[in-house]
């Protein structure tokens, strides 16, 4: 069957549009969340994903629903890119019983096993071995699924990162390690955290395929991830991808951390000019895959989704106090 391709790349148009939509959905959702935090409506600590949208989007677009991804404290983007429901996500940020984690998890603990997101951990590097474990399960069951661990540059400080890469490489497991290198670990620049800031090279030591891509270019992320994921499906073992990017907001919440002296306005400006969404948008408009009119329609659609999400949370209840000890164990 013939597939229409975009002009410069070999990515199907449909895929490009899909990725554009996903990135914009994350952006708009996060902008809404930022404003709700400022209004003190949302309490649970939110680590906003704005600026990094191309990574979750580029990776997840190559995945099947039955593939698994694990997320971190900065979880909203992964959830949305993997196909999560904005309603359940918004409800979770308000810690409602209808939230994707039933109000028990909050922003840092987002999950929906039905979309292949078995969870996010607020412990740096905590989900990396879990992704290896899911890959081990696929491997044992001879499934052609893959598992993905998303984590930040900060996670490279934790020993379990290395242990996990070694185990995956040793057993040639179908897992993709995605390092979102946004140059910061909380208030610390990467150079204050790692003696070797070339994380790709660190991963190379484990004798697995590695790549570094522009994490603000969704097409690069997509193409590299896709190849690695396909290889993993064919039992060619794990792979590692370092995506260079930047978070527009500060570590947590909608402040910028510039006033606190943690980074410069110039640095932020530099990166905002490299907006991953604008980048794709420009290309798509140039190539006439996207028109201003079409863009409006998409934005309207997303706005409606977000409005519905808010309406959904508005009619949702908080958990009941009486249920405080519910679900400590799964009882048969």
């Amino acid at each position: 069957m013939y597939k229409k391709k975009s002009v410069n790349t070999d990515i199907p148009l449909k895929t490009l549009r899909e990725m554009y939509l996903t990135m914009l959905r994350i952006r708009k959702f996060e902008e809404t969340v930022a404003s709700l935090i400022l209004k003190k409506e949302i309490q649970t600590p939110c680590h906003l994903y704005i600026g990094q949208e191309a990574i979750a989007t580029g990776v997840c677009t190559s995945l099947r629903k039955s593939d698994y991804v694990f997320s971190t404290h900065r979880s909203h983007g992964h959830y949305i890119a993997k196909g999560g429901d904005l309603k359940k996500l918004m409800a979770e940020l308000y810690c409602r019983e209808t939230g994707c984690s039933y109000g028990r998890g909050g922003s840092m603990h987002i999950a929906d096993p039905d979309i292949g997101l078995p969870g996010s951990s607020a412990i740096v590097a905590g989900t990396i071995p879990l992704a290896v474990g899911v890959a081990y399960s696929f491997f044992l069951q001879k499934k052609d699924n893959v598992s993905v661990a998303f984590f930040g540059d900060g996670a490279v400080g934790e020993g379990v990162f290395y242990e996990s890469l070694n185990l995956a490489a040793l057993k040639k497991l179908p897992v993709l390690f995605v390092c979102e290198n946004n140059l910061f670990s909380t208030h610390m620049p990467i150079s204050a955290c790692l003696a070797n800031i070339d994380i790709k090279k660190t991963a190379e030591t484990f004798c697995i395929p590695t790549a570094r891509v522009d994490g603000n270019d969704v097409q690069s992320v997509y193409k590299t991830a896709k190849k690695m994921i396909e290889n993993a499906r064919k039992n060619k073992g794990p792979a590692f991808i370092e995506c260079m990017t930047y978070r527009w907001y500060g570590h947590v919440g909608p402040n910028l951390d510039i006033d606190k002296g943690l980074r410069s306005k110039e640095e932020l400006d530099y990166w905002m000019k490299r907006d991953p969404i604008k980048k794709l948008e420009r290309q798509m408009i140039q190539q006439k895959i996207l028109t201003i009119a079409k863009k409006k329609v998409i934005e309207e659609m997303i706005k409606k989704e977000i409005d519905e999400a808010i309406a959904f949370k508005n009619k949702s209840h908080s958990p009941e106090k009486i249920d405080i000890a519910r679900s400590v164990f799964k009882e048969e």
Partner: protein
Amino acid sequence: MRIIRYSEAINEALHQLLASNKKVFLIGQGVTSPWYVGTTTVGLIDRFGPHRVFDTPVSENAVTGLGVGAALTGMRPIVVHPRMDFMYYAMDQIANQAANWHYMFGGQMSVPITIWGIINRGGEQGAQHSQALQAIFAHIPGLKVVMPSTPYDVKGLLVASVEDDNPVIFIDDRWLYNYEGDVPEELYSIKIGKGIVRRKGKDVTIVATSYMVYKAIEAGKDLEKEGVDVEIIDLRTVKPMDKQLLYNSVKKTKRLVIADASWKTCGIGAEISATIAESKLLTTLKAPIIRITLPDAPAPASSVLEQAYYPESKDIVLAVENLLKYSCDNNEKCDY
């Protein structure tokens, strides 16, 4: 029935679990070694191959995490730590991840993992190769903790741990490996959370865990000669605890000795004692509740010191005798 050793019962349970359920796999250090985990894993690698019986590098944290991740997809991993001491490296995966996962996501996914920690002490190994960490795991919500003492129980509780939908810390003690007992040949499981009366009696209740059950039974025999009739409860599961069994016994005997061979402070003994103390039985007790535990000290190497370190049946005998002699009607004169 058939009499086999405790270690053989573990081995048989592992064989049958792996054979009967494709979701089960065994991972950890030494699962293919001829000495590392006693003889509990003999024959597994040949029968089930290197993927379902995965001998790992020394990476306790990632190896445990691998098990947790696999469990999230419905697998039933058994992760072994040949000494509990090594589990400190894996605490994040056990306590932050496995224990919380079911609750933290509102009950959507459970973690049906069995984390098998072996108490492997004595023999002048010293402080880092001797620890018994049941109390730490019992403290953490979301974990179940089982400590079988007999060959029958070890098989049935290992099977139950693997069948349980939650993370279970399954703790055995190398000192139990040569104890013999009746063990059915078929696969069976014992309900987690149920203790058992090992000796019926009326004078004093002795609640014991794991290896200390045998010490309690020895003590019971010695005390019988003195005309003292103790009731011995083998807790089997330390969390959740079989409170009703404790209540029933203490209600009758009104005296309680607890024997658990881990450290005293905030230990299993403390929990059992506090469980009785918060019940209405407290004001019916005829004497204080005595805890027989390790002292609050690391394990020494010297075998002479080891003898002083590990509680013996004579310590239980002494405690029971003291409780029976106890009287303090005029408590103004009492010292503590």
